[in-house]
């Protein structure tokens, strides 16, 4: 039943309008697409609102390129056999979107899930609405449109049945894949009605009758298994790296090791002698900013992947390293620290911080450091492209298919209509696969090979060396306390190369969307507050990484609060709650925030009541306050991110030798109503492990402009034995009539500070620089 995603046959046959299914291709009357004023201009995928301040504010899906679509003809097709095909237009990377989004449509449609197949949409934002699968947005932006899709299709089936029986439509009702005439008990299956329904106009949006949430079958229940589960465990699931086409060639690319570098000269003589190597092709480099362009370099094209890898080893390349040849992480950390110790651009200023600091009973300061990180998706970037009669078709593990399509068209100099981008399953995404550079490489190489299909595979070394790395940051915090130990002044200087530098090489300040991630929107009740952003220069491609700037900001802010609590001898949980203060709804614009995750500050205020509740829930469930044996400790942290509230209580056990284990983590999440609670839990569990991973183990560092880590032995990822033994997720109930929050990212930010706060509780040792590695053994 569960249709395996097969990119090699996805061509036209996967799109419902081209299939023999019937509820398709009729009038679109009554359906307008919600189209963003931003149109196709996407300077930074996922952050459009931050960059076009002159535009009138548009929020939610309206603020995204091509907005949303709720046309059932784009998303639903019903065959005469009753099979319901539902399109998923967002990319599946482990968040469960191929289950959760079609489930919304199926529920409103009263479809029997056992008779639903999921069809993956190719890149076509005009038809499907925004497809940039990042920012933890899929469900909160498409819950309502997908409900309307399903409900409209249900209405068409009901209308068709009523006409067949010659009864008023008010007398019939769709129930579990058939329409029932209540008075007579007559029934017609969806397959029998599909043909008639397809002839009907789509009902106008304002006439659509949504289900009462009390009657949901699937939404909110967590009763459906992953649609791709059986294919995944049997090896049938198709990722981009698995694409196979007739006559396909295999490529690996030697890319400039330094950002902004290029090939000076190369010698392919030995490479071409490697059995299986077909050709060596140079890919042109472009000067920074990198944007989504391929980095350039020398590609080896072969009959199989191994021959391409061996061929690349045999290349002789002389690189011109360019302006970033001196980039050195040790030196750069000192540079960031110097910047953090001097005043910078003031981005929020309340009261008089300097006066309060000068007259305070007590002052504390601390600096926190988090290095670069790589997404290190288990499936490295991979893409295949072919060009037939001037038309390019590509397959990729891509979070932003429309951007890939657009950039391939531009690079090849062909029209958008002549590019088709198919979305495979993604073996992890985490933001890396929002950048289509690797898909453009495949298209460029196919063109060089006369249009032959070429698959580009990044090796793990390529992935770590040439990623769009998470930024590196120093956060400088100062606070003044009065005689009662109450904070009266707060100074936060946040210094980190900005993601904007990947699009504008001169950018040195964090963008509103970065500051708006747990820095500028600090919600504590403190009368004197100043938040500054000194400049920082990027020397590598900076990209977005699951939960983005919340990682450094939440680590610093939530660690510092615990440091203040310790300084005045208070319980850190009670102290944190006191700082947050009473329940209130903060319009984050009053804090100077212009981002709020692209959501309306009225619809989505920062609700300190919800912030308090997740802390209280996690603390209660974790047994906060109970005595623990020697060497054990608990720490708490909270974050508001992606308009969701998550608190974590981490329990650590530290041996006499300083070995760290994590017996248990309690996570409380308030993301509003949960569409698929089972996957919300899974996302929180995974986010917890990712947080533990970058807190304890990994680091990407540079020397002479080059990344020092090559593979998983030097860029460590948390493994089973070091992972938390138990992760308990506590879902705060929500209402379907209230706005939804994000799920994919918000579980990450509180983990590292909660872990380090637990270590402090257990040992008295304060960790201010990540990763922890052997700091506990010193």
């Amino acid at each position: 039943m569960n249709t395996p995603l097969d990119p090699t046959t996805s061509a036209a046959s996967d799109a419902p309008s081209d299939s023999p299914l019937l509820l398709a291709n009729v009038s679109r009357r009554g359906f307008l697409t919600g189209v963003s004023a931003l149109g196709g201009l996407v300077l930074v995928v996922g952050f459009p609102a931050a960059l076009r301040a002159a535009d009138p504010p548009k929020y939610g899906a309206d603020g995204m390129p091509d907005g949303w679509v709720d046309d059932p003809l784009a998303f639903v097709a019903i065959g005469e056999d009753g099979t319901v095909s539902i399109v998923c237009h967002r990319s599946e990377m482990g968040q469960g979107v191929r289950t959760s989004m079609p489930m919304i449509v199926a529920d409103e449609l009263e479809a029997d899930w056992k008779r639903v197949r999921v069809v993956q949409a190719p890149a076509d934002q005009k038809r499907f609405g925004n497809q940039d699968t990042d920012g933890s947005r899929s469900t909160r932006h498409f819950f309502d449109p997908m409900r309307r899709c399903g409900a409209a299709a249900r209405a068409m089936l009901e209308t068709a049945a009523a006409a067949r029986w010659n009864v008023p439509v008010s007398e019939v009702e769709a129930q579990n894949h058939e329409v029932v005439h209540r008075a007579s008990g007559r029934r017609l299956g969806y397959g029998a009605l599909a043909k008639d329904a397809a002839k009907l106009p789509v009902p106008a949006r304002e006439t659509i009758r949504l289900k009462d949430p009390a009657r949901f079958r699937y939404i909110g229940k967590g009763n459906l298994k992953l649609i791709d589960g059986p294919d995944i465990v049997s090896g049938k699931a198709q990722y981009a790296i698995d694409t196979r086409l007739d006559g396909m060639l295999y490529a690996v690319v030697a890319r400039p090791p330094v950002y902004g570098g290029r090939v000076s000269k190369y010698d392919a003589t030995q490479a071409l002698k490697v059995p299986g190597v077909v050709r060596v092709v140079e890919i042109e480099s472009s000067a920074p900013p990198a944007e989504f362009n391929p980095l350039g370099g020398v590609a080896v094209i072969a009959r199989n992947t191994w021959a391409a890898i061996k061929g690349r080893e045999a290349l002789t390349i002389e690189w011109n390293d360019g302006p970033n040849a001196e980039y050195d992480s040790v030196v750069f950390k000192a540079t960031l620290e110097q910047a953090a110790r001097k005043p910078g651009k003031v981005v929020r200023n309340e009261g008089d911080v300097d006066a309060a600091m000068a007259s305070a009973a007590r002052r504390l300061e601390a600096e926190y450091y988090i290095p670069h990180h790589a997404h290190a998706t288990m499936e490295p970037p991979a893409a295949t492209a072919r060009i037939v009669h001037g038309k390019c078709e590509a397959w990729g593990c891509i979070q932003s298919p429309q951007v890939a399509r657009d950039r391939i068209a531009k690079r090849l100099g062909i029209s958008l209509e002549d590019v088709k981008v198919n979305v495979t399953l993604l073996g992890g995404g985490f933001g890396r696969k929002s950048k289509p550079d690797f898909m453009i490489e495949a298209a460029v190489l196919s063109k060089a090979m006369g249009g032959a299909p070429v698959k580009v595979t990044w090796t793990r070394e390529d992935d770590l060396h040439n990623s769009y790395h998470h930024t590196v940051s120093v956060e400088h915090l100062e606070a003044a306390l009065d005689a009662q130990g109450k904070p009266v002044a707060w100074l936060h200087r946040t210094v980190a190369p900005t993601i904007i530098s990947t699009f504008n090489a001169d950018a040195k300040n964090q963008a509103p969307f970065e500051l708006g991630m747990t820095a500028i929107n600090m919600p504590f009740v403190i009368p004197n507050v100043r938040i500054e952003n000194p400049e920082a220069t990027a020397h590598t491609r900076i990209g977005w990484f699951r939960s983005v700037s919340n990682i450094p900001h939440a680590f610093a802010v939530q660690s510092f609060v615990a440091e203040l609590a310790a300084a005045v001898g208070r319980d850190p949980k009670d102290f944190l709650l006191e700082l947050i203060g009473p329940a209130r709804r903060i319009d984050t614009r009053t804090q100077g925030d212009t981002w709020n995750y692209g959501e309306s500050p009225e619809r989505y205020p920062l609700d300190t009541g919800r912030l308090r509740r997740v802390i209280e829930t996690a603390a209660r469930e974790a047994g906060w306050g109970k005595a623990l044996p020697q060497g054990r400790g608990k720490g708490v942290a909270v974050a508001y991110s992606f308009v969701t509230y998550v608190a974590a209580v981490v329990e650590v056990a530290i041996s006499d030798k300083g070995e760290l284990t994590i017996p248990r983590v309690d996570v409380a999440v308030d993301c509003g109503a949960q569409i698929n609670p089972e996957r919300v839990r899974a996302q929180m569990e995974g986010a917890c492990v990712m947080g533990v991973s970058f807190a304890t183990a990994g680091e990407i560092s540079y020397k002479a402009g080059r990344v020092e880590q090559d593979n998983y032995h030097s860029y460590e990822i948390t493994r089973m034995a070091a992972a938390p033994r138990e992760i308990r997720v506590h879902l705060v109930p929500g209402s379907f009539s209230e706005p939804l929050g994000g799920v994919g990212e918000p579980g990450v930010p509180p983990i590292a500070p909660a872990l380090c706060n637990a270590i402090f509780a257990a040992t008295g040792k304060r960790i201010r620089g990540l990763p922890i590695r052997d700091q506990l053994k010193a």
Partner: protein
Amino acid sequence: MVTLHVNGKPQQVDVTPDTPLLWALRDALGLTGTKYGCGMALCGACTVHLDGQAVRSCVTPVSAAVQRKVTTVEAIGADRVGKAVQAAWVELGVPQCGYCQTGQVMSATALLKQKPQPTDADIDAAMSGNICRCGTYTRIRAAIQQAAGRKGGTK
């Protein structure tokens, strides 16, 4: 040409003898359930069974696999233990992105065939060579325990 015995069948593979089994399976035979993750036996995504033992196919040259029985994830469901492992994985919703899970299933199956009732320490030892970047470890552990209970047919 090299002759391999894969999933019960002899297969002619046109690769050089130094080619890792991983790439022979994936590129020459189209058995793409065995995944590339690191190429250095660091992540376990490429795990297959060689005469019933879990090995990392990315560092196993095809020359070392001739005359031996290669089992990949595509055939592991034919094994009673493998089938129980796959069923537990689906039942408990272990996969997130799913990319590493074929390797996890192969490592877990090898473990349970050797130790039908593994302890937590056994699971740590057998599974810590398999990285999951999505962080599904708690569910992997639970699924192994569930599969261990099921194998006897009593649960």
